[in-house]
């Protein structure tokens, strides 16, 4: 039972395009930035260390130049001044030693003599070492002295303060540069991605605004890569619109086609009622008649519904409609119906102009009046009012009939919902359609108690025409 939600919780959300692009930018950077930094560090460090070694080598060479031999004895004599000059360095301490071919210290710092190795004349040896506890850079050079084959050694050691400092600075500098560079690349990449994806957001916005009743093609500019997507959407919209229209047409046609047979059925029933007939058949004939009337009304309302939906497709543009005129024009149709139903139909008409679809507003008001005439009952009064205040046009249809309990009123607006006692020729669609139309026109339809506490008043409120 609980397996499904768990499974769906475990499933990872697929990465968004933005995340994907960013990931593919950051991952290579994670590899290239450190290795690039390492290469840079090594290059700069090695070059600098080489120059430092070169400087130290110069000192070695200079010391070597002071070595002389006299009767097979190695002599190294420098003045105090020269000694200081040889040892001079602003940052590091410099040690040196001159060794006789036998390894005996001729001059300089004896600590450096501890390392035993031999060199050929002119041979360099560079190594890291320790003097006492101090790490040093030690450079040794073999110098030919005295008899052929005799090799003296000059060794110079330098503490590694400079080198350490150099490494530290290089490390900081290179990693700093690499970090800033990577950050800049990521930032630029992020901006580029956002810019690049902006058309997707624009097209999503456009799609968000589409609905079955708003299917116009997407007009927004899109980059060439997204043009096929836009075209595909537009073709889809076209197909949807065609489907929606053909559905409208079908309903509209079906409703029209239904009317003719219903008319002939009704005419036949009325004929039967007029002609001499068995009185026992009278209730049956009346029931048949009201059944036919209800079917006719249903067909009419399906037609209205189809047209109301067609109106949402913006097939017919809205116009200025004076509800007073609309009611006045329909009065001619309503009065005979009211007379037949034994209802006193009256009007209180003042100008009430709105903007909308005339046929829909007509259907709306027609539904309200139809209901009042159908349910108010013989002897009741029905009053149709139009008026307007500062912001609204109002139509009220009030009857002095039995009314509808407040608790039941909301339910009356649901489709195919009829009063507790099904009677009259209602299809149950009328009020639902009426409310749909009212809302489409930015208005509201509500049920209230009649003015004198009797019966029902249905009030339509619509925004006044500009």
């Amino acid at each position: 039972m609980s397996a499904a939600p768990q499974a769906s919780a475990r499933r990872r959300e697929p990465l968004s395009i933005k995340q994907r692009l960013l990931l593919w930018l950051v991952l290579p950077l994670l590899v290239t930035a450190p290795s690039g930094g390492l290469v840079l560090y090594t290059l700069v460090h090695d070059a600098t260390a080489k120059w430092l070694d070169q400087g130290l080598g110069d000192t070695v060479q200079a010391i070597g130049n002071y070595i002389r031999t006299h009767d097979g004895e190695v002599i190294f004599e420098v003045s105090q001044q020269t000694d200081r000059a040889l040892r001079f360095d602003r940052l590091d301490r410099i040690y040196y030693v001159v060794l006789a071919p036998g390894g005996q210290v001729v001059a300089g710092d004896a600590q450096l003599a501890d390392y035993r190795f031999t060199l050929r004349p002119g041979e360099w040896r560079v190594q890291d070492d320790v003097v006492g506890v101090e790490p040093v850079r030690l450079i040794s050079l073999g110098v030919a002295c005295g008899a052929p084959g005799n090799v003296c050694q000059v060794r110079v050691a330098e503490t590694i303060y400079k080198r350490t400092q150099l490494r530290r600075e290089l490390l900081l500098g290179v990693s700093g540069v690499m970090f800033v560079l990577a950050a800049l690349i990521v930032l630029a990449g992020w901006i580029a991605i956002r810019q690049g994806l902006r058309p997707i957001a624009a097209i999503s916005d456009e799609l968000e605004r589409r609905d079955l009743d708003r299917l116009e093609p997407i007009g927004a500019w899109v980059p060439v890569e997204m043009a096929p997507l836009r075209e595909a959407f537009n073709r889809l919209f076209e197909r949807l619109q065609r489907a929606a229209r053909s559905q409208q047409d079908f309903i509209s046609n079906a409703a029209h086609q239904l009317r003719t047979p219903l008319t002939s059925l009704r005419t036949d029933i009325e004929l039967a009622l007029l002609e001499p007939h068995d009185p026992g058949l009278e209730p049956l004939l009346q029931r048949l008649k009201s059944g036919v009337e209800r079917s006719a009304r249903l067909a009419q309302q399906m037609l209205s519904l189809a047209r109301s939906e067609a109106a949402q497709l913006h097939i017919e543009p809205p116009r200025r409609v004076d509800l007073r005129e609309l009611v006045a024009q329909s009065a001619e149709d309503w009065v005979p119906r009211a007379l037949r139903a034994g209802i006193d139909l009256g009007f209180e008409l003042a100008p009430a102009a709105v903007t909308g679809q005339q046929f829909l507003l007509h259907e709306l008001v027609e539904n309200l009046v139809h209901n009042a005439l159908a349910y108010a009952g013989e002897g009741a009064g029905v009053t149709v009012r139009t008026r307007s205040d500062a912001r609204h046009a109002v139509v009220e249809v009030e009857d002095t009939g039995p009314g509808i309990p407040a608790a039941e009123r909301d339910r009356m607006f649901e489709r195919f919902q009829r009063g507790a006692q099904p009677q009259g020729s209602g299809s149950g669609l009328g009020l639902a359609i009426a409310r749909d139309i009212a809302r489409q026109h930015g208005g509201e339809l509500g049920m209230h108690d009649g003015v004198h506490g009797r019966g029902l008043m249905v009030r339509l409120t619509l925004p006044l025409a500009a």
Partner: protein
Amino acid sequence: MRILLVEDDAVLADSTARALRSQGWVVDCTARGEPVPISLREDRYDLLILDIGLAGIDGFETLRRVRGQGSPIPVLVLTARDGVEDRVRGLEGGADDYLVKPFALSELIARARALVRRSQARFSNELRMAALRMDLDARRAFINEESLALSAREWEVLSFMLARVGKVIAKEQIVSASNGWDHSTTDNAVEVCISRLRAKIEPAGINVRTVRGFGYLLEEQDARRSA
């Protein structure tokens, strides 16, 4: 009275024709619009009942051809379409009245009768309803051959209303139909006039029904019972 019924649904044509015949009228039926202009030229009809949705040329076109040959015959248009645009188009095309399917039989008969009455009044220059007769040439009114005294205004209002029997007549229409009145005329003046008329034509068996806040409707007292 002779009626030409143009309706392409055979079943509906049959029941409508039977209903009209039940009123003692003679009814000829045709399913198509094309032969209608010729029929109207060859035979004398009092009323054309025309369905809009016909096979072949439609009702609008038939109507155009009928009016095109100058026929003044009253035309009642039947349609399965109730769009206001259709209604306007029908009336502008020369129809005298308009019924939307499905209509009540009594409605059809009442409209047909009113149309014929109006057209006959045009020919005979006489308006009749129940026991009331208005001789438009002589400008004199009678109830059962007894002269009925009417003021000039009452004459105008009554003749206007009698020409529109079966229809609800708005007060504004009454105002604009009468020469002496202009738009500043109060509803009150109309009401006073109507109440005088009501008293005068009641003996003829005519009831002036008030439609609250709107206007009036002429009814035959006995016809009201049967309707």
